[in-house]
C-alpha cells in the first residue's frame, strides 16, 4: 500500500494498463509532452511514445469519434477531454454512436473505449470549467458512467473501465486531484463497475452521493454524529449501471434519504435516485426523499462569493440531514 493523491492513482493506473496491454492508447489535447493540463498523463509520452500517446488537434468530436473507430479495430483508447465542459461538441458521437453501436449492430460491434474528463466546481473555474455533466450521459442506455471518490477507487475503477468492452465515461472531480489522498495497493487490483460502497455505516438516514460530494457527505455525517444523528453514506461510484440493491437496502433500513449532487438540481442525476427510492422503497420511508443540489443557474459563476453560493458543501448537507432527522 502506498499513499497517493487522486491524480497519482489515475496517472499510475494509466501507465500500468499501457504496460500490461499494448492495445491501450491515450489521446487528447495536450496529453503528450505537457502531460495534460492537470498532469494526469504526465510521463506517458516519454515512456510510450507518440504512437500511443497522441496530442490531438483541438477537436473533441474527432477525439471521441476516432476513438470509437480505433476501438472497433483492435485498440482500447483512453481519450481525455480536457474539461468535462468541453465534451459537448462530442455529444453526438457519444450518444448517437458510442452508446448505440453494440445495440444497433445486434452485438456485431462493441466500443471498448474510456473517456476521461475532469468535472466539477469549487476551483474557481466559472461556468465553463466547473460543470457536472454526468446527468446527460447517465440517461443514455449503452454508456457506462463512473465517478470515483478515492484514489483506491479511481485506480480500481479506471482499470475496470479500460478493460470493459463498452464505452465508459470516467469523470474525475478536479478539486480532488491533489487534495485527496489515500492508500492504493501496488498490484493491479480492480474495483468492479456497477457496485456502490457504504463508506459510513449508520441507521437513521441514508445520504447518497458520489465524487466530491461523497467526501462532503462523510464530513457532514461526522458533524451530525456529534449531535446524535446516525447517517449511512452510500458512495455510488458507478452511476450507470446503478447498484440499485445497495441503495434500496440502505434506505429500507434507515427509512430516510437525502440525495446529494453538485450539478443543477432540476433533472440532475439525483433525480433518478429519488425516483427509484420513491417508487421502490415507498413503504419503508419515514420522511420524504430529499435533495441537496446545485441551484438552477446555467453554470457555476466565477466570483468567489457567487461560487460559494453555488457549491454544495458539508454545512449545507449537514443542515439537510438535521432537517430530515427532525421530520
Amino acid at each position: 500500500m502506498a499513499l497517493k493523491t487522486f491524480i497519482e492513482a489515475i496517472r499510475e493506473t494509466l501507465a500500468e494498463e499501457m504496460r500490461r496491454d499494448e492495445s491501450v492508447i491515450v489521446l487528447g489535447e495536450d496529453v503528450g509532452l505537457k502531460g495534460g493540463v492537470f498532469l494526469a498523463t504526465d510521463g506517458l509520452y516519454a515512456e510510450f511514445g507518440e504512437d500511443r500517446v497522441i496530442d490531438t488537434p483541438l477537436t473533441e468530436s474527432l477525439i471521441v469519434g476516432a476513438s470509437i473507430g480505433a476501438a472497433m479495430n483492435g485498440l482500447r483508447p483512453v481519450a481525455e477531454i480536457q474539461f468535462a465542459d468541453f465534451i459537448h461538441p462530442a455529444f453526438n458521437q457519444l450518444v448517437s454512436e458510442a452508446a448505440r453501436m453494440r445495440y444497433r449492430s445486434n452485438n456485431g460491434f462493441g466500443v471498448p473505449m474510456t473517456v476521461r474528463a475532469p468535472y466539477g466546481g469549487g476551483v474557481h473555474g466559472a461556468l465553463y470549467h466547473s460543470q457536472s455533466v454526468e446527468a446527460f450521459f447517465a440517461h443514455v442506455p449503452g454508456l457506462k458512467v463512473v465517478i470515483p471518490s478515492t484514489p483506491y477507487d479511481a485506480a480500481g475503477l479506471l482499470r475496470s473501465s479500460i478493460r470493459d468492452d463498452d464505452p465508459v465515461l470516467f469523470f474525475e472531480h478536479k478539486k480532488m486531484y491533489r487534495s485527496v489522498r489515500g492508500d492504493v495497493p501496488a498490484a493491479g487490483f480492480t474495483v468492479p463497475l456497477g457496485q456502490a460502497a457504504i463508506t459510513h455505516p449508520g441507521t437513521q438516514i441514508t445520504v447518497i452521493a458520489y465524487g466530491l460530494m461523497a467526501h462532503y457527505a462523510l464530513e457532514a455525517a461526522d458533524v451530525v454524529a456529534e449531535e446524535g444523528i446516525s447517517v449511512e453514506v452510500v458512495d455510488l461510484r458507478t452511476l450507470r449501471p446503478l447498484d440499485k440493491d445497495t441503495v434500496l437496502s440502505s434506505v429500507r433500513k434507515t427509512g430516510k434519504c437525502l440525495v446529494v449532487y453538485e450539478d443543477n438540481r432540476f433533472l440532475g442525476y439525483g433525480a433518478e435516485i429519488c425516483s427509484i427510492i420513491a417508487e421502490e422503497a415507498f413503504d419503508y420511508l419515514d420522511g420524504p426523499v430529499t435533495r441537496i443540489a446545485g441551484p438552477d443557474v446555467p453554470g457555476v459563476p466565477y466570483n468567489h462569493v457567487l461560487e460559494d453560493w453555488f457549491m454544495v458543501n458539508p454545512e449545507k448537507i449537514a443542515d439537510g440531514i438535521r432537517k430530515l432527522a427532525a421530520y
Partner: protein
Amino acid sequence: MAKAEPGAGAGVSDLAASVGLTDEDLLGMYRVIATARAVDERMWVLNRAGRIPFVISGQGHEGAQAAIAWPLKRQFDWIAPFYRSIATCLAFGMQARDILTAQYAKAIDPSSGGRQMPGHYGNVANNLVSLSSPVATQMLHAVGIALAAKIRKTGQVAMTSMGEGSSNQGDVHEGLNFAAIHKLPFILVVENNGYAISVPVSKQLAVADVAARASGYGIPGVVVDGADVLTCYRAARDAVERARAGEGPTLIEAKVIRLTAHSSDDQQTKYRSEEELKALRESDPLPRFRAELQDAGVLTEELEATIAAEVKADIDEATEYAETAADPSPSEAMKWVYAEDWPSEEPPAWGFGGGHGMAGHEGDTSAAKDAV
C-alpha cells in the same frame, strides 16, 4: 456474387489491361452493379406492394460504388458505408439476402437483427461498419479505424463514403485534418448527386467541387465521373496504393446521379423538373458500363443474359428468404445494450419493488414486462 462465368472472364482484354485488371474483375464489377440495381428495384416493388415500409436506395451511385470498393481487400480493409451504399456493400462481401433481410427487418438481418431501418447496413464479418442515421458520423469511425491500422501496423486501409450534403458537417473537417496530419491510410469518398434531399448543391456549397477542400488539408482531391466505372476504379486504386504506402489520405469525389426520390417518403417532383429527371438517364452508370464491356468484347449478349438471369434468381430467392424469415423476438430486445446483462437496467417488478405493504407483489416480474 464473384462466381466466375463458365469459360468467360478468364482472359485479359485490352480494356481490362488498361486498368491492370482481368476480365473476371470487370465482370465481377458488372455483376455487383447489376445486382445492386436489381435489388434496389425490387425494394421499390416491395414497398409499393406494401411488403416493406421504407426504401432508400443507391440507384445511379452503383458504378462509382462498385469500382471504388474494388481495390480494397475484403475482410481485411474496412469500409464505413452510408445509406446508399448497396453496391459498396455487395462489392465488399454482403449478399442480396443480407440487403433484403434488412429491408424486412428480420431477426437474421446481419446488419442489425431487424433493429435498424433499412439502409443502415454494416456487419462485422465483412469489416463494414454499422451505420447510424445522423450523417457523417461514420467519417470519424473510419479515421479511427485507419489510426488503429497505423498504430497496429496492420497494413489495412479504411474508406468511408457519404453524400456531398453530408460533407459539410463539422465531423468531416475534423476527420480530414486529423487523417492528414497523421498520414493515415484513409479514403473519403464523396458521392455527389447534386442534392441533399431537396436542397440543390448550389445551396449546399459555394464551390463546384467538394474535392476543392482537399488542398486545405494538404491531401489530394480527385474528381471523377461516377458513371465512368473504370475511371472511378483507377482513382480508388491510386488512393489505396497511396494509403497503403503510408502517404496518407485521399478525397475522391464521384459525380453521380440520384435516379430515384431521396427515399420512399420523398416526392422529388416538388423540387426537380421533369426535364431534369428525364436527362438523368443519360448518366446512368449501368447501361454505360454494359456498353463499355460489350464494346471491349468482355460481355457478350449471351453472358449478359446469363448474368441477368442469375441476378434475378438470386434476388427472387433472397426475397422469398427474407419474406419468410422470423421476426426478432421482444424477449431479446433488452439484449446488447451492454456486453453483459444488467438486471438493474430492467424496470422494477411493478408494484413498487416489494415494499412491506406490498409483500404479495414482490417478484412479480411478468407484470413488469407488460408495464414497459
